[in-house]
């Protein structure tokens, strides 16, 4: 690796990527021995469910937003989309419970928690716009009720839940992009910092010292040297 100071952006980006995520860390073939519980599979299950949500959404997009009302196959693909969303939230919330009880933000991992919780909230928004795009009784009702909460916060003036065209585009374009970016950052942070180690056994300071470390993390989490 070159030690010459590059002014070139491309070289800087590449070297930063190599430094933060060398290939064997980006896609390791081993995990620390403490990663040994079924609770650890709920992250990947959430991502898998997200993939099925996207795939079924793409299939629906091929035929347009009214297809599922008039076609049996369309209704089936809509069902795939609905149930993969239910599974997505099912796995994501269990993943959140697990990560909370493991205090997975310890050891400089606050941003992993932050991106994950923002992704959770963004998912709720994506689901909301999805329900609004159904063009059936449920979407009418959800729109007429949802407008009150949003209007009371001043948001409804810009985000009109009664405007199908706007809600549909937020659902199929804007929010999937936002969610995709959040998920990618979230996973890269896990790869960068490694899976959070267990709380240390009493009398032993082998590594990460639990909640006290979080105090330091608060001070240091503004990326010292830009390579956090």
């Amino acid at each position, binding site marked *: 690796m070159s030690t010459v100071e590059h002014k070139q952006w491309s070289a800087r980006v590449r070297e930063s990527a190599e430094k933060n995520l060398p290939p064997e860390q980006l896609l390791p073939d081993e995990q620390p*021995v*403490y990663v*040994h*519980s*079924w*609770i*650890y*599979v*709920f992250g990947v299950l959430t991502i898998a469910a997200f993939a099925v949500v996207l795939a079924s959404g793409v299939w629906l997009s091929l035929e347009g937003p009214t297809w599922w009302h008039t076609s*049996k*196959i369309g*209704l*089936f693909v809509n*069902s795939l989309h609905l149930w993969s969303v*239910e599974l997505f939230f*099912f796995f994501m*919330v*269990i993943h959140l*419970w*697990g990560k909370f009880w493991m205090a997975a933000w310890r050891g400089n991992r606050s941003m992993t928690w932050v991106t994950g919780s923002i992704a959770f909230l963004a998912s709720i928004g994506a689901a909301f716009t999805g329900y609004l795009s159904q063009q059936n009784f449920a979407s009418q009702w959800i729109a007429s009720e949802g407008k009150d909460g949003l209007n009371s916060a001043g948001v409804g003036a810009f985000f009109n839940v009664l405007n199908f065209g706007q809600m549909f585009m937020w659902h199929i374009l804007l929010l999937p992009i936002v969610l995709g970016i959040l998920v990618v950052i979230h996973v890269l942070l896990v790869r960068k910092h490694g899976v959070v180690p267990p709380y240390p056994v009493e009398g032993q300071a082998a590594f990460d010292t639990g909640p006290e470390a979080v105090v330091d993390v608060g001070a240091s989490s503004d990326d010292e040297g830009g390579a956090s």
Partner: protein
Amino acid sequence: MGAISMRLGEVLLGAVVNLNHPAHYFHRGWFQISVANLMVILLMIVVFILALFLPFPGRRVQ
């Protein structure tokens, strides 16, 4: 053969269990939840507990 596969296709594309009727609700005073939602939430708790307790395959930690 064609007729059978068409029939099977219809069944698969429709619903084996018809949920298109008024929902059942669990009521206690001001608290109300549909049985469907309640089952989803209970299932989540059960799966979470199982995930914590069920042994994970592979070599035990050295």
